């Protein structure tokens, strides 16, 4: 009953968001503030605004949320009430972020999203990886949000206002501007899982797949991109911040693409690819030009569509097969069952991967090309940042094509070299049941789950043309060749049944271990120190005070020997001493 109510509310709310976006489309930008309280010279309050960016993001959020809510109706059977409630709350929080004109309102939405993300990752709280992934996600983003909050302070106090529409980079001194935006960038990096706070996103994958699609691919992690786009004037006013952003984005996109190449679980591959694609958006933003911003937002929209689609497809695999690990999927694939049993999923996932890999004609191709083009224009003007972005995006195109091809082939196709075997993934799970699974019961998902897939697949193709096709044919040719360069090795490895995975990539460069050693272990150590300190140092003072009182009382009791003469002696000594003291004082 409650679950049904929440289901209806959830779907209804996301449709409402789409409707609002539709209604707001084309209206003039406007903003209003309310509930303001003066605090000293500053004003703490809320404000909302509408403009093109708001409408765009509202549409993206609304559509993806609707798809996810509908999809979840078929996908989720465990604790649906809390699930749908939280997804709805998340959607509301994202809407808050999108429409906020007050930095504090934005922060509220920003962090409520984080909390919802935490709760939804931990939806399957029976599972250990879900619990730890949830905690990790929340703590890392929270750490970044501290920087974000300080950034708000620096900018707000520097500008004298916390209204986004009133932030004028010209009126903020350059030092304050750089500091503030740098701190904001910390929050953005955390939320969007960029280097060095990237490790939470892959670990967030134990959450339900629709949640991964909505929160960890399409919307929440893209909120960082949104924020920079929203505060683009402020961010682009500082060259330092743009350079930092470009470097972060370049490192991240290469790093995570490399990690994706060695991941052996569909959702983990997709998670790393999300990180990588987000970095491409950031690299577009880091150009500091209107073209770059446009390219980044374009990529945000298409990415939301195709990455949402891919995660929902992975959800179908999880739902129908029970796992998205390569090793399990191969058991079905080696008999060629998976493709035939799940035709719609196969088709839509192919579309999604094609879009991700940048196959010409799909949305991802166009949006990525706009980024490359913007970078090229910028680089041609002699900008180092432009060159950095251009080169790293091009390399990423190669890597992306590689892991997309690898994923597609290994999951859906029998390897001609190793027709019957699990292939290179046997070692992953020594306990794996090598028996033939019962494939006869494998069916495609119910229509309520497939409908969103189809919708998003259509979007993954169609969105590429939404902006009008303005291609720089040379660049398009170059990226296509680059993508082919990436796809071919993947094909050749697969056809030989080999999947070489360098250890350093499998361990994802050892970042997690390092963080554990650098932060978690010392904090635990300090925690024990704090408790020990309380008990043994501060507590000891208190106990010592008590014990000193007892001891003193015992000592003074000992003076009561019962010998009257000692008492008298003491009294006389006292009198003499007092007399001496009185004499000393009076003289």
């Amino acid at each position, binding site marked *: 009953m409650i679950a049904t109510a929440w289901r209806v509310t959830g779907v209804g709310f996301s449709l409402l968001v789409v409707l609002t976006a539709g209604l707001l489309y084309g209206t003039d930008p406007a903003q209003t503030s309310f*509930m303001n309280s003066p605090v000293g010279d500053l004003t703490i309050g809320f404000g909302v605004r509408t403009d093109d960016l708001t409408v765009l993001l509202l549409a993206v959020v609304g559509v993806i949320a609707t798809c996810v809510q509908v999809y979840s109706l078929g996908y989720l059977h465990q604790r649906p009430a809390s699930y749908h409630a939280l997804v709805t709350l998340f959607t509301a929080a994202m809407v808050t972020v999108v429409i906020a004109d007050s930095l504090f309102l934005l922060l509220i939405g920003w962090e409520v999203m984080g909390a919802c993300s935490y709760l939804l990752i931990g939806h399957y709280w029976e599972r250990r990886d879900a619990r730890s992934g949830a905690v990790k996600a929340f703590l890392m983003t929270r750490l970044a949000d501290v920087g974000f909050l300080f950034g708000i302070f620096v900018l707000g106090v520097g500008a004298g206002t916390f209204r986004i529409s009133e932030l004028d980079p010209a009126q903020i001194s350059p030092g304050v501007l750089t500091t503030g935006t740098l701190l904001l960038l910390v929050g953005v990096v955390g939320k969007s899982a960029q280097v060095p706070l990237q490790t939470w996103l892959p670990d967030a994958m134990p959450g339900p797949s629709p949640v991964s699609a909505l929160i960890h691919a399409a919307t929440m992690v893209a909120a960082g991109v949104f924020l920079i786009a929203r505060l683009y004037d402020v961010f682009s006013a500082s060259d330092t911040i743009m350079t930092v952003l470009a470097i972060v984005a370049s490192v991240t996109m290469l790093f995570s693409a490399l990690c994706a190449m060695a991941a052996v679980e569909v959702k983990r591959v997709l998670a790393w690819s999300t990180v990588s694609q987000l970095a491409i958006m950031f690299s577009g933003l880091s150009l500091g030009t209107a073209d770059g911003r446009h390219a980044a937002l374009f990529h945000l929209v298409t990415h939301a569509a195709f990455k949402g689609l891919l995660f929902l497809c992975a959800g179908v695999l999880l739902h129908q097969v029970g796992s998205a690990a390569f090793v399990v999927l191969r058991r079905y694939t080696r008999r060629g069952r998976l493709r035939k049993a799940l035709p719609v999923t196969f088709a839509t996932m192919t579309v999604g991967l094609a879009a991700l890999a940048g196959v010409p004609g799909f949305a991802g191709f166009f949006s990525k090309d706009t980024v490359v083009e913007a970078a090229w224009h910028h680089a041609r003007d002699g900008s180092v940042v432009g060159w950095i972005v251009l080169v790293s995006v091009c390399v990423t195109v190669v890597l992306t094509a590689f892991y997309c091809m690898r994923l597609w082939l290994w999951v859906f196709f029998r390897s001609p070299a190793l027709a019957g075997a699990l292939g290179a993934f046997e070692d992953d799970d020594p306990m794996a049941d090598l028996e033939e699974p019962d494939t006869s019961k494998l069916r495609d998902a119910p229509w309520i789950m497939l409908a969103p897939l189809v919708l998003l697949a259509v979007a993954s193709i169609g969105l590429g043309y939404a902006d009008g096709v303005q291609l720089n044919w040379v660049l398009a040719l170059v990226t296509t060749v680059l993508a082919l360069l990436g796809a071919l090795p993947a094909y050749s490895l697969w056809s030989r049944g080999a999947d070489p995975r360098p250890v350093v990539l499998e361990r994802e460069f050892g970042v997690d271990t390092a963080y554990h050693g650098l932060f978690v272990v010392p904090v635990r150590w300090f925690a024990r120190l704090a408790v020990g300190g309380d008990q043994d140092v*501060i507590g000891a003072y208190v106990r010592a005070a008590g014990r000193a009182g007892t001891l003193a009382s015992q000592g003074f009791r000992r003076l009561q020997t019962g010998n009257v003469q000692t008492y008298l002696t003491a009294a006389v000594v006292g009198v003499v001493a007092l007399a001496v003291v009185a004499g000393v004082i009076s003289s």
Partner: protein
Amino acid sequence: MNAILLGILALPILAAAALWAVPVAIADRLAALYGSVVSGVVLIGSLLLWPRGAWASYTTLQDRPLRAVTDVPWIPSLDVRFHVAVDSISMPLIVLTALLVFLCCLYSVRITPRIGRTRSLIALLLVIEAGVIGTFSAMDLVLFFVCFEIVLIPMWLVIDIWGDDHDPAGRRRAATTFVLMTVLGSALMLLGFLLVHRKAGTFDIVQLTNSPVLGGHGVALAAAILIAVGMAVKVPLWPLHIWLPDAHAKAPTVGSVLLAGVLLKLGTYGLIRILVPVLPDATVTIAPYLAGFSTVAIIAGSLACLAQTDVKRLIAYSSVGHMGFIGLGIATLSPAGLRGALFANIAHGIITGLLFFLAGAIKDRHDTSDLREIGRALYARLPRIAALLTFASLASLGLPGLAGFWGEMLVLLGAYNPADALPRATYLVFMVLAGLGTVLTAAYFLRLVRNLCQGDPADHLPAAFAVDLSRIELATWAPLIALTVLLGVWPGLLLHQWGNL
């Protein structure tokens, strides 16, 4: 107006006396019902005291007018007056006190302590209520001190008699430590008050606020240090917090709720009401140290929480961290910091009250508050209580949109922009450390949720007797939950009250 204030001061005392005086034995529930009626009337009275029209109006109150003033000589030979009044600083705290006591009495209607003697417990709660409201409305230093002390003994008895029934020695020790440390603090505070009187010639807070004791050294500094240390014991500030975990952990549920929700506020209220306005220059001198200790409290309290194995102790230690934020806010002496401290006072009272109610409920159901013995997977066994615990944890870790956020945010903002006389660089360091403290806060609350609520239910099968959220619990907690959300989304409800501090 002043009749209402005098009424809510006198009513609990008289009601408690009447409750004790009744010769026949009264059923536990009847006593609790009586207590709820009395405290309910007090709650209504305190709400009536709230300035009319100020509920939602966003007009800035330029000066904080004192209302409901009663000012009569009390001990003329000592220059002590019975001067009570309320203003926008004390008003929310009084309402919070009345609310929490009311909820505690209501809670006791159904859920009585195992030790029994509910009649005395209710009477003591009423005495505490009167004492706390008296402290919050006292405008005379000696009266403040007297009310401050009135609260102490009943609380001591509550811990000593109705505390943890598995550990009589422990609860006695906790109660003794509590009472001794607090008395030590109040003795120092009284000494400070006497120094102030010697310097200024009056005990009247209003007069002292209007013509403060100037000078940041000598007698004024000594008085400020004494008052600050005295209050810091009550707050409690690291390293004077050692009484708190024991006292909270051993106290009965209602005791913990009042202790955390109300009693800790006496210290911070005293700092804001007395130290800052009466000794402004000396406060500037000691503020950096106060801020430093507060920051250490934030970090040390959070770290200590990370290693706790007892749910009530954990929440108690979390109070150390949160009160550290309040101390830091006061020490910034900036508008934002002081408002943040006041806001965090209220928010902490509500959220920690709720947390202690929840911890008490979990403890009652499992007969232990040890995390390992309670086991995991409360989401499966007690889904609603576990969900509320998660909610309260999120609120307590300062999630924006819930009440806990605004206080901490304003405190950090205050630390970013402290009063001009204070060293800004130092405060920036404090701000960063306190910000890291919020991450640690999140860490230990998530650890709590992970170790208590989540987990494989197969390992811990639901006990037969464990019932989920009962109606009285829902009724008692609902106001706190509602206020947590309300203050979270509408901070202006309180913030705009404090026009000029």
